């Protein structure tokens, strides 16, 4: 019970943090930001690994295996594609500054 309450507290505080983290992002970055947070929820891969490690019969093994594959796709694909997108923003930062000035 004690642990559960603590976890609920973590949930609440983390939710506030999540709300706070996104604020006034230029719309230019909306797509990469969506794609990066999409990769972050691939953390479910950690859960999939734990669940596959604990699998005891063919059903749970199969389910766990699919979850691991899916989770890995989410993680690797997500970060990779975000990186590809962002590498196209290679702004010579100076030029942008100069333009503003």
């Amino acid at each position, binding site marked *: 019970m004690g642990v559960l309450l603590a976890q609920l507290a973590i949930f609440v505080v983390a939710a506030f943090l999540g709300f706070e983290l996104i604020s006034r992002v230029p719309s230019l970055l*909306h797509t990469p930001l969506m794609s990066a947070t999409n990769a972050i929820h691939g953390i479910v891969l950690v859960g999939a690994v734990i669940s596959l490690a604990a699998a005891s019969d063919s059903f749970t093994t199969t389910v766990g295996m699919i979850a691991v594959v899916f989770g*890995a796709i989410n993680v690797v694909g997500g970060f990779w594609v975000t990186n590809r997108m962002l590498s196209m923003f290679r702004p010579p930062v100076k030029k942008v500054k100069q333009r503003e000035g």
Partner: protein
Amino acid sequence: MQVATFVAYLVAAALFILGIRRLRAPETARSGNTLAALGMVIALVATIFVADIDEALSGIEILAGVLVGSVVGAVAAQRVQMTAMPQMVAAFNGVGGAAAALVALSEFYQVEALGTHPETVVASVAVLLSVVIGTVSFAGSIIAFSKLQELALTGSVTFPLQQAVNAIIALVIVLLAVNVLAGGLLLPPLASLYLILGASVLLGVLFVIPIGGADMPIVISLLNAFTGLAAAASGFVLDNYALIISGTLVGASGTVLTREMSSALGRPLRKIIFAGITASATDSKGGDEEDRPVNDVNAGAVGEYLSDEAEKVVIVPGYGLAVAQAQGPMFDLMETLESQGKEVFFGIHPVAGRMPGHMNVLLTEAGVPYAKLYDLEDINPELEDADAAIIVGANDVVNPAANDPEQDTPISGMPILEVDKADRVIFVKRSLSPGFAGIDNPLFYDTDKTMMLFSDAKQGLQEIVEAVKNK
């Protein structure tokens, strides 16, 4: 849980937080993504080395699974074209949601199969939430993918009593969930869970099919937040802090991002979700205006004007450029004009295209320097003394009807690129048909100022480049 794993999870969470922070500005965004990826590696390594992998077999299974998934993900991410980005994100989001649901399902099965009931109500609630939210996100993402890839169900698919049907499905899910929590009053818990799974798939499908393809980026962002919450719920099932913290972060930040996106596009979230307005808008109006005269020109005339009389040229790209994959010819046009000593700027409206940042990504990919891409506030003053504005495959973002107080349109009040301030306005598009918002553009019919080049964007631009070069 061992303390080392715990610390690794906290470090991973901290890296995700720092990563998201850095993603808020273009200069630091890429390093932010790298930081978050690093956090993921740390969390994963800590899990693999410390999880109770008693049998060698399951170790091999895990590595194989991770490897297969990584290769699939990497290849897909590397191969995908930039124009297909939204459906790629939808696909990755879908598998993530499915993974969360499967993890919860497997935990529940294990406990049930052993004949013991889940220890606490809370764990059962978490399982149920994870399965429902994860599955809805999975099914919804698949539909979104199919719409964007134009495989099936494109446009807004509606049927009578849609809202009522959705409500009934939701109710069924709730009843089944109560049955599970009560330990199986009517049906065995595991059977109920499978039914819930099925109902959730249906709900996810029905949730997304009425939404028009152009609203998809917003819907994907929302489903992204859902998957985050599903991951957090799985974290409660597994007592795992990495999942709880990170899943919650994504759930919350994804919600805010969805709201920001929809407000940047001027499309209130409620409208998107509760109706299929989009599709019908596109084919309104249009027909009866066609007989008004327009100044229909060929590429030669455009090339001549640009070459002889224009010194300062502003190019405005839109959705049609992306569809026609015309970013290459666009780059050529820029180079050709610059080689003749002319000044070229690009005016990028925040909602140009079908995905935020769409135009910037496409043009920088084609080689246009980032510093030539001006946003709304910066380009409007430049337009005042521009000799020509070339609008390629765009309509809404330059439509003066948005600022006409007499008209009440979906884009009313949206700031536009004021191309009519330039001496000449050149449209490159296939017809007089309007764009996403379905609003006719009075500039088309300003025969003194406007030249209409009716052509596919790619072909039209290529022809203009030729014409300019041959002068």
